[in-house]
């Protein structure tokens, strides 16, 4: 289907189903129940899942395929956000020009930074990208305040006079009148599910982005990128110039980042400088590695994992814990709550850090590897009698 082989089609369908039914899947617990804390199916977080998924997918096109580890990708995210908010300020709240411009601006920005940084490889490249991003961040925070509104963040003021904003248009981001923040809440017994326009716009864009990324992975271009990662020397002596390939990958992934930035701004029309800080760049690196660099679906999983912890675990507090364990006798409840408290609320990053370690120690290859192992365990039972044919096992599909 769509020019994909069977396996990739299945993967695409799985992602599509997950994305379209996310409001159900992510809200498995009845509202008001003790476990409702773990529900992630509210518009903002669902949007973040897919937006950061897009960001990570794009990052993976560069890192997963070419092995070039950019430590400055957040700069493109930030630039994309600024571009989109400026479109709201100048043209009006329709998200289309904002999203288009964010992709274009990020692409140009990536072209410039990539052109310079790609003169070096390995860690030298990483540090060059880091340096550019940190410079962008520092300037956005201070001297570029007229453009970026500094620490406060760029936003649309009522004193702005967008050209195409008519009196009847909504004064929040919308897609031809479809307001991004509007949510239809479906109640089904104790459960409730949120269907948000903005989320579905993001989800559809994610599917397109994911589809394009599959195509890139399977294309001759993708093959060349993997060749770059594997042996640049051989590539050069085979008559291929590695630079344009890596630059193209860099720009494409920069455009993905810009798209993510534009979508962030479209869901929530504010762009802050800290989106460009190295911690933000580091986050997408972690997402990709955690999910499984070089795999198709890994980055999406990684993005979901980190955002889930950031948003769900950070909100659990002592009172919530007491709520859960109130059925226990006090002498057990209090120490238990005391212990767990360290891992939730302000301690969410402790949990995340520990999970990073556990995942990477026990699942080299990231969450995807975990999934594969699980799959193998299930399937392995059936095939157990088959003899191990040795060498054939050495075959691997690096781009699964």
């Amino acid at each position, binding site marked *: 289907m769509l020019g994909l082989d069977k396996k990739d089609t299945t993967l695409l369908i799985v992602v599509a189903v997950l994305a379209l039914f996310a409001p159900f899947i992510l809200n498995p617990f009845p509202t008001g129940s003790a476990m409702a804390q773990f529900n992630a199916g509210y518009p903002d977080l669902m949007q973040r899942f897919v937006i950061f998924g897009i960001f990570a997918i794009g990052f993976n096109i560069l*890192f997963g395929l070419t*092995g070039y*580890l950019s430590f400055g990708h957040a700069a493109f995210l930030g630039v994309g956000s600024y571009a989109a908010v400026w479109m709201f300020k100048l043209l009006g709240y329709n998200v289309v020009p904002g999203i288009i411009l964010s992709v274009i601006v990020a692409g140009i920005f990536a072209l410039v930074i990539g052109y*310079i940084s790609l*003169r*070096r*490889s*390995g*860690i*030298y490249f*990483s*540090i*060059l990208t*880091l*340096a*550019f991003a*940190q*410079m962008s961040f*520092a*300037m956005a925070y*201070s*001297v570029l305040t007229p453009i970026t509104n500094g620490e406060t963040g760029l936003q649309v003021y009522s004193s702005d006079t967008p050209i195409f904003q008519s009196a009847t248009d909504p004064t929040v981001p919308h897609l031809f009148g479809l307001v991004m923040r509007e949510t239809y809440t479906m109640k089904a017994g104790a459960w409730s599910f949120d269907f948000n326009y903005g989320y579905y716009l993001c989800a559809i864009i994610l599917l397109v982005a994911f589809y394009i990324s599959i195509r890139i992975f399977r294309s001759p271009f993708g093959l060349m990128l993997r060749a770059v990662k594997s042996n*640049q020397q051989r590539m050069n002596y085979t008559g291929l110039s590695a630079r344009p390939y890596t630059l193209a990958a860099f720009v494409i992934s920069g455009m993905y980042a810009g798209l993510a930035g534009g979508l962030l701004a479209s869901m929530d029309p504010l762009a802050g400088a800290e989106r460009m800080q*190295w911690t933000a760049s*580091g986050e997408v*690196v*972690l997402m990709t*590695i*955690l999910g499984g*660099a070089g795999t198709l679906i890994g980055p999406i999983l990684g993005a979901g994992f980190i955002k889930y912890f950031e948003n769900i675990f950070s909100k659990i507090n002592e009172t919530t814990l007491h709520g859960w364990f109130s059925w226990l006798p006090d002498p057990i409840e209090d120490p238990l709550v005391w212990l767990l408290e*360290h891992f939730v609320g302000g*301690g969410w*990053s*402790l949990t*995340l*850090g*520990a*999970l*990073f*370690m556990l*995942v*990477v*120690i026990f699942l*080299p290859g990231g969450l995807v590897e975990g999934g594969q192992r699980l799959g193998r365990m299930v399937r392995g039972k059936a095939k157990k009698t088959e003899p191990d044919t040795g060498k054939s096992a050495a075959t691997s599909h690096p781009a699964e």
Partner: protein
Amino acid sequence: MDDIILQILNGLDKGSAYALIALGLTLIFGTLGVVNFAHGALFMIGAFCAVTLQKLLSFERIEVSATEKTAWGTPLEIRTPYAELWFGHDFGAALIDWSVPLAILFSIPIMLVIGYVMERGLIKHFYKRPHADQILVTFGLAIVLQELIKHYYGANPIPTPAPSVFRGSFDFGALVGFDPGSVIYPYWRMVYFAFSAVIIGAVFAFLQFTTFGMVVRAGMADRETVGLLGINIDRRFTIMFGLAAAVAGLAGVMYTPINSPNYHMGMDFLVLSFVVVVVGGMGSLPGAVLAGFLLGILESFASYSPIKVFFEEWLFLPSIDQIIIYLVAIIILLTRPRGLMGRKGVMED
């Protein structure tokens, strides 16, 4: 002129900190081939060794007053440090006063043990894994370490002053013939610079002139072959890791009077240390030290307001002090492919 000297002096101590952290980072990288994102955390732990010792020394006996109450309604507590109770008032107070230098002795075994445990327990399993995995696991570790420190010590900086004799500042100007008071420089920063010079020298001598150093250098190049020659390279690498941890820790201990330590100081330094290591050139110890001092001094100069103004007005480069390190890093990396003194083929792919 006096301002220039002042800025150089200022750059030296900042450079010392960069150089010390970067030294350990390259050492671990060079010997073990591990990108250690937890190295900043080791620096931070070193600093908290000083905090801990200070706390231990000023551990107080608490007598709860039966009658008096505090302004916020809890019973009044009368606190006396045990150190003063046991060792007499003066000596006890002196111990507390000297807690930072004493923490050097206190921290060395602690850092060695932490380094040892870290290497044996975790890093060891990542030698053959891709750098990306190493980054993830050490980053996770760094988060865990700093969160633990945060749980225990809070997020707020904790003042850890230098011994009172070092608290003043030295009048450099008078010494070299400028107006008295025109170039003054805190004593403790001089101590810090001297201290790091000694440490850096010692590490270099150790690696260059001892057999152990030769083995480690050989192991950096090819650990498998060194093993084939009957040498237990793993054990030596563990020692190197402990050493690198100790260097980072000592850098942290001595840094506390300059900046009150807090739990995220490691992360603050980490990124810059990486820049320093890379600008110095991967795999090169002298490169790391050189780049550390170079960037420290440049940073110091860029903060000097006439220079800031110059860049702003003439070169249209505003807030040069915020971007100088990165700008210089970019220029150096573009003109010298492997940084200042990098070895070929190290981390280039």
